[in-house]
Every structure is written in structure tokens, then in C-alpha cells.
């Protein structure tokens, strides 16, 4: 089946033919209008056209999103149904997981969810108006601050459908103007939301400040025009190193790049895991969730797992027992969390196959077809293909000292799942120095994200807005600066 991906330009839908693109994986292809033909309308022509967003109150925005959420039930919404069908072909997530995540979409838009997000991640008063700051050193001066929206391009990732959802919500609460560049492995979900917005309220300012476009990342005809401080102020880029590196060539003063970089995540497990078989079983279950949730398509998922089991014979045996239990737990995960991977990476498969040629070094559980695998290293070194781990394949690495695990952490490390809790407290400062950005209880790496919080060590929403200051002072005090008074003491700065 051929899919048509519309170009959505501030409330208008362009869906006549255009260019054909091959999707990733399943080989599904789609056509989309050539964005070059519509470049003049892609960016907001003048920043003053942001004004309509300021006729809205924050509660108007909340009400809009809340109503939108009720229209995004995947059982009812035909645009989302179409996006789901295409994602079934292009996503690394299998049907039950995709269905579960599409089912969660309306919740993100609920009034209380949106208010909570805005309050925690920016501050509703700052979004709503000019907030007077506590008095400074000179009582004759006043400082007020407001968080104002910006014109931004969002280059979003397609590994999970929530990225597009979050982008639309963040754009609305910050009163910004978004051009969402969708990924080839999910070109329709964000477009489906935008089309629903058009059906619901075609002339509403929030609808008119969202554009959704697909072009092949790196298309200079489009990017050289668009990534220009005259047209946009910010670029929010999710995704791979090559993609972000590519964007950096357009950076110049006036253009702010917010990167949600490629990351990898890991696990550190202390010796307490081996207290008894029941504890180990529980640890294995929690570890299986960190590995398998979202079919390991997220950067939050566990891949290399350091375990302080010891590296002597008994230690290796303990690590292997954990490997065996974890593999079994992985196979038993509920369908909405994880299933065998539908497009198992053939290169990774070749690496797994080659492990049987070096049996003394590694013990492999699973890995025969697409069921996933746990590789237990029989020394304190991860497998050489650690960076390829995906499709529910993880590597348990036994260590004598927790230091070895701490040293493996760097600025590309996003999440670390830790067991037990006390170890998290002991290690958290050191892990943070090393570069880790998120420390979670084992089992929560991919699932503990209910409370809005910083992301990848930054606060993206606080960076998506412009923090504008309004400083006032007593008129006499301002004028006095111009008058020469030789005898007077200099005015304090």
C-alpha cells in the first residue's frame, strides 16, 4: 500500500503527490509534496505574527489541548489509524507495543497533565505574564521576566510515537511557532495530530502555529533556506550523531541549537542482588524490563549491565545465573511492553553467531532467532559490539569493583538503572561527574517518566522559550547618570 504524507502549513493541508520516499525497515514507501515548492510559506514570514498567541490565556491553551486529546482516541481517529498502519511497517516496535503507546496519546493532552508539565518545566506565571522579581540591591529598580515563545524547527525522532505528541504540546504551552520535520520511520503520527487540530479548530492560533513536513534529512535545498536566523530562532534536534552534526553547519549567531543527542544507557547492579535466589529473580525481572521495554528501541534502555558479582569462577557463575534468569524474564514480559523483534538486525545476528567461536569468553542465552539474547561476559570486558546492542540483546559484565562500572560512564550515557537503592545514593554524584544524566531504580529506565523532569541533562522547555527581561528604574536616578558632578562619589553600578 502506498501512503501519502501531507505537508501541513499552518492550518492548511497540501497533499497532492510529489516525491516518493522509501521508508526504513519494512520497505514501505510513501509520497510527500516537495517542500521546496512551498518554502516561502514554511517559515513564519514575520515574528510579529506571533502576536495572536498572546491573545490567548494559558487556560485557553489548556482547554484547547484538553479538547484535542479527546479527539485523539486511536479507536476513533482515522488519521491516527492510518499513522498506526504505516508505523506497523516502519517502526521497530511491534503491534502490541505500538497499540499501547497510541492508546496513551490522549492522556498527554489532559488539562491537569498539561498544567503540571508547564508548571514544573517552565512556571505558568512566567508563561502567562511578566513576573516581578524580588527586590535587588537598589530598591529604586524593578526587574520583571517573561518566558516568550520562539520560532523553532523540531527535527524529531521516530523511534516512539510520543516524540511528536510532546512536541505539539511543548509548542502550544510555550506559545511558540513550530515547524516539525518528521522522520522517515514515523512520518504520519505528528501529521495526524495536526490534521485533527485543523478539523477541530482550523483558525485557532495554536492550529495556525504548527507546520508538519517531511523532507529527507540533509536536503540542502530546504535546510540552507530554513536554518537561518531571519526565519527561525531555534532548532530542537533529536536523533543520531550524523543528523545533528549535519545541522551544526548552519549554526550562526542568532540560531540556537537544542540537541537531544544520541545516548546510550546502562545498568549497575551491586552484590546485594545475589543475597538469595528470590532476590536474584526479582532483580532479573526488573533488569528484563529495562532491557526489553519499547523493544529496546529507546535510548533509555539498558544495554551493557555491570554486575558486581566478582570475576572468579564463582563470580562468573553468579553472573551467568543472573543472565539465565534475565533471559527467561525477558521472554515472559507482557506484550504491550515487549515482544520478539520484528526486524532483528542481521549484523547483530552475525555477531551473536560468532560468539559460539569464542565460547570460553562469553555465555549466550537465547539469540537463536529474533527472541532477544543475554550475553554474559566471562571477564570484566563488554563485548566489542556493545554499541550495536539492540533488538532486546544485552550484555552482562561481571566486575570485581564497582569502580570499573563507574569508569565506563561518559557524557554519552543517558540513563543508568541501579540496584539496590542505597548504591544509587552512594554513586550518584560520581556518576553525574562522569556524564550520566538520569539515575533510576532498576526496572524504571523506560517506564519511570510520569513526572515531568529535565531531559538529557538539560531543560528543553526552558531553552525553547526566550527569557525576556523588563527592567525599570526611577526616572531621576536614570537622568542623574548624565550629569557631571565632580565632587560626587561615583554612582554604584
Amino acid at each position, binding site marked *: 500500500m502506498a501512503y501519502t504524507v501531507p505537508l501541513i502549513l499552518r492550518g492548511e493541508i497540501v497533499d497532492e503527490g510529489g516525491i516518493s520516499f522509501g521508508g*526504513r525497515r519494512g520497505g514501505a514507501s510513501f509520497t510527500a509534496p516537495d517542500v521546496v515548492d512551498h518554502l516561502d510559506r514554511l517559515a513564519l514570514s514575520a515574528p510579529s505574527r506571533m502576536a495572536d498567541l498572546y491573545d490567548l490565556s494559558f487556560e485557553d491553551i489548556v482547554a484547547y489541548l484538553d479538547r484535542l486529546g479527546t479527539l485523539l482516541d486511536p479507536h476513533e481517529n482515522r488519521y491516527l489509524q492510518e499513522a498506526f498502519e504505516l508505523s506497523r511497517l516502519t517502526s521497530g516496535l511491534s503491534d502490541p507495543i505500538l497499540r499501547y503507546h497510541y492508546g496513551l496519546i490522549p492522556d498527554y493532552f489532559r488539562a491537569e497533565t498539561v498544567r503540571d508539565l508547564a508548571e514544573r518545566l517552565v512556571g505558568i506565571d512566567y508563561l502567562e505574564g511578566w513576573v516581578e522579581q524580588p527586590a535587588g540591591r537598589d530598591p529604586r529598580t524593578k526587574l520583571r521576566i517573561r518566558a516568550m515563545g520562539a520560532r523553532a524547527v523540531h527535527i524529531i525522532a521516530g523511534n516512539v510515537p510520543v516524540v511528536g505528541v510532546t512536541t505539539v504540546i511543548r509548542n502550544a504551552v510555550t506559545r511558540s511557532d513550530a515547524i516539525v520535520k518528521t522522520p522517515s520511520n514515523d512520518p504520519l503520527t505528528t501529521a495526524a495530530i495536526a490534521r485533527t487540530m485543523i478539523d477541530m479548530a482550523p483558525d485557532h492560533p495554536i492550529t495556525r502555529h504548527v507546520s508538519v513536513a517531511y523532507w529527507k534529512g540533509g536536503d540542502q535545498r530546504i535546510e540552507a533556506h530554513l536554518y537561518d536566523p531571519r526565519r527561525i530562532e531555534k532548532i530542537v534536534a533529536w536523533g543520531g550523531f550524523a543528523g545533528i552534526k549535519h545541522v551544526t553547519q548552519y549554526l550562526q549567531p542568532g540560531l540556537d541549537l537544542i540537541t537531544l543527542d544520541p545516548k546510550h544507557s546502562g545498568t549497575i547492579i551491586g552484590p546485594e542482588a545475589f543475597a538469595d535466589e528470590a532476590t536474584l529473580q526479582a532483580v532479573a525481572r526488573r533488569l528484563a524490563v529495562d532491557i526489553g521495554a519499547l523493544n529496546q528501541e529507546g535510548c533509555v534502555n539498558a544495554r551493557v549491565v555491570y554486575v558486581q558479582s566478582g570475576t572468579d569462577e564463582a563470580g562468573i557463575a553468579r553472573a551467568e545465573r543472573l543472565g539465565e534468569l534475565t533471559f527467561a524474564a525477558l521472554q515472559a514480559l507482557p506484550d504491550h511492553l515487549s515482544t520478539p523483534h520484528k526486524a532483528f538486525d542481521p549484523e547483530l545476528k552475525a555477531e551473536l553467531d560468532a560468539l559460539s567461536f569464542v565460547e570460553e569468553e562469553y555465555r549466550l542465552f537465547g539469540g537463536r532467532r529474533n527472541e532477544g539474547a543475554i550475553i554474559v561476559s566471562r571477564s570484566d*570486558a563488554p563485548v566489542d559490539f556493545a554499541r550495536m546492542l539492540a533488538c532486546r540483546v544485552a550484555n552482562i559484565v561481571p566486575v570485581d569493583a564497582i569502580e570499573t562500572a563507574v569508569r565506563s560512564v561518559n557524557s554519552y550515557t543517558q540513563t543508568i538503572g541501579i540496584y539496590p537503592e542505597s548504591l544509587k545514593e552512594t554513586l550518584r554524584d560520581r556518576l553525574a561527574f562522569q556524564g550520566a544524566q538520569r539515575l533510576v531504580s532498576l526496572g524504571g529506565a523506560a517506564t519511570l517518566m510520569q513526572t515531568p523532569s529535565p531531559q538529557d541533562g538539560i531543560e528543553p522547555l526552558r531553552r525553547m522559550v526566550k527569557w525576556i527581561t523588563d527592567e525599570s528604574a526611577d526616572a531621576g536616578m536614570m537622568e542623574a547618570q548624565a550629569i557631571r558632578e565632580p565632587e560626587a562619589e561615583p554612582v554604584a553600578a
Partner: protein
Amino acid sequence: MSDFVQALAADPQSFRDANYDAGFRLSDAEREQVQLSALRKRFAELRDRLPVLRKLADEQGIDRIDAIDDVVPLLFPHTVYKSYPLSFLERGQFDRLTRWLQNMTTTDLSRVDVSGVTTIDDWIGALAAGSDLLPIHTFGTSGKLSIIPRTKAQTIITPTINAHCIRDFDGYRTGPDILVDHMPLISPSYRYGASAIARGMNLMADIYAAGDALFLYPEAYFSADVASLAGRLRAAEARGEQGQIALSPALLARRDEFAKREADRPHDMDRFFAQASERYAGRDVFLFAVWPILFEWAEEGLKRGLKGIFGKNSILTTGGGSKGKLLPPDYKERIFEFLGFSRHFEFFGMSELMANAPRCSEGHFHFPPVVITFVLDPETGEPLPRTGRQTGRLALMDLLPDSYWGGLVSGDEVTMAGFDEPCGCGRKGPYLESTIRRFSEAQGGDDKINCAGAPEAHDRAMDYILERSA
């Protein structure tokens, strides 16, 4: 049944001294007979002597080969010859590396002495000193080099067969026999090393050129350690993690040697051109290099006002594609303008294989019958039928090696044809169309350094060592 078929069926290595072209004149039945009986021979010889093959055969419950496709479950993944952990190298555990390699070969490695060995180069030297191996290494993906346990006796096979390919390309003994009528060898590369190309060059300098050879770097050694670092650097760069590479003390200790080579490089280039145009001007020579290197060389030469330097009957052999390098559309013309001749033979091959596939006038690659070709379903790994035109993963069974297993599933996506009809060039048997690409490329990325990119990667790795240790 002809003597040729009988000989090949009994001993595939008899192909070394055979009529090369006869391999492409076999009927389907003859080819199958040769391949099946040779395959049975190799399986019978190696099954119980190679631990890795025995294990795989046991797991698959395979005791005998009744049909060619029976061997498919026994083909090794292409990662097998680099399945050792990198930590062996990082931690200097060369005894364990030797034990690992022993699993892959029937050659006795028990007398190999690794005391004092700190680098891959040293280890390869120790293997050659303490056993019958003369191993070769690849250029390495992500810094891991495959180590192929080729023996001293086997090294002669590949250049001999290649020479016969040239001699018999348009029919038995219709072309020059370079093994008899020697030609000077010109190589814009390293004189020494254990890479497949460096080993081949060394041997060709003897058996094709009787010692009359001109190398760009006549004293230099193409270091496996530097090649490994080059791969790791490239992979790290692609991920933006360049700062994370640790240089081993053993490699740093060789810094002065590298620095000297760097300093000599411009001088080497001058000397190379001077000698090429003085000593070999107008003479028929044998030249072996990949297209991108030739192009660089030609540009450099043309810039110096040199063109048409060699004799009209010279021979160029090439291959390796131009992946990763953008060459202008007229690159071949530029190269031939500089060289002064255009007779060339292009091959598709791999370091792991002893026999390569020449490219014919139709642009197709033909493996001689001593290499069985398979196209596998990329999803299931099952062999696709030998009819029509099939696209999938290339797998090969090289029947020439008698001390290690020649069965390999490649990382290449290919289209194969020629099952029903002979090629337009007249050769019979299956052939590969020219659209060969890595599977990782098909999936949107390629971090393999192929032969074409190797020297440049090697140079950059040396720069890195020099910078880091300055």
C-alpha cells in the same frame, strides 16, 4: 568425464595449475559434480579436526553432505575470523589469541612463542616463526581485524590463479603468462605487511616480476596495529566519540618509526615518480591497485606533467570498488591517460577467499568453480533456488583451503543470475551482477573500511598517533 573435471573433483587445488577458462566451460552437471565431491572431501577432512566446524555440525546434526545446499547451515558468519575479544589485544593476552586461532585451523600452533609480544604485528610475526602459518589480516570494521589462518604453502595459490586468469581470460593461453614472461611490478603502496594485499604484492614481486619491483613506500610496513586503530578511529568518529580512543603503550612506543615514515612520505612520492618515469618509462609493467589510489596517483602524476609513461602491453589488475570515494565520471580515462595503457582486469574478492571473481565484458563477476556461490534469503538464511535471478545475501564456500573451513556467509547483498542461461560473455555458471553492496549500507550506514579507503584511513591513524604523543 574430462580429466579436468576428474582432477578438480578429487582435489580442488589442482585448479592452481589448470586451464582457468575451462572452469567456465563446465556443464551444470559437471560443475555440480566437481563442487559436490570437493565439498564432501573438505567436510570429511575437516569436520573432526576443526573444533568450530565439529561443534556446528553436531549442533545441526549434519554428518554427511548429500547435496550442495546441505552445507548452508555449516557456513560460518563473516564475523568468525574476528570473533576474538578486543580485550585480548588491549590486555596483551596473545596466548589466548593464539588459542582462539587454533580453533579455526588444523595447523599446529603449539610451538608459537608469544613471550614479549605486545602488538598484532609482533603476534603475526610470532605465528609465522613458530608454525606453518603465514596469516593475513583484513582492514577491519570498527578496528577489529579478521585474522585468516592461511599457511605458507597456500599463499602461492591466489597469485598463481590470478596469473592464469589473465593468461586464459579470452581462451586458454591467449594472453600473456606473467609467471613465465615476467614484468616489472609497480605498486603505489607499502612494500611489507600482512594484509591480504601486502602479502600478495610481496609474492607477486617475486613470481610475476622476478624481484624487479617499484613500491611507493619501499621500506615501509603496513601495520596491522595501525590498521586496527584506523578502524576504531573511524567508528568512533562516526559516533562522535573520538576522544575515547586509548592508545596502547606498545603503539606509542613505535611513534618514532611512524614519524620517520611521515617525514619521508613526500620524498617517497617524488622518488616513486622519478623512478617510474626513468627506470620504467615505455616498458610493459604489471600494476596492481584499487581505482581510488590509481586516480590519486594519476592526478599527482598529471600534475607533474607525466603521462603515457608505461608500455602499451602493460597489465593493470584492480578491484575494491570506489565506495566512500567520489571519483569524477572520467576517472578511468584520466588514469589511462597517465598510465599510457588501458588493458585491465577487475576482480571482486575478499581477503577470506583464495580465488576471486573477474569482471567480464558484460560487467558481471564470475567465480571459478572452486568457489561455490549461494544467495541466501536475508531474513531466514535459507538458500534461494538456483534459477532465474536472485537477490539476497551472498554466501561462499571456498573449496581451496585444506587446513581451515572455507564456508562463509558474507555481509554483502548481491543479485545472482546465470543459472539457466550462460552470460552474454559466453561463460557458463552463476555470476554476480555489478550491484554489490554491504547490508549495513542497505540499512543506512556503513562503517566498513574497504580496500579503497584503507590507505587513507591508515595515514589518518598515523597522524592521530603522532598528534597524541607529540
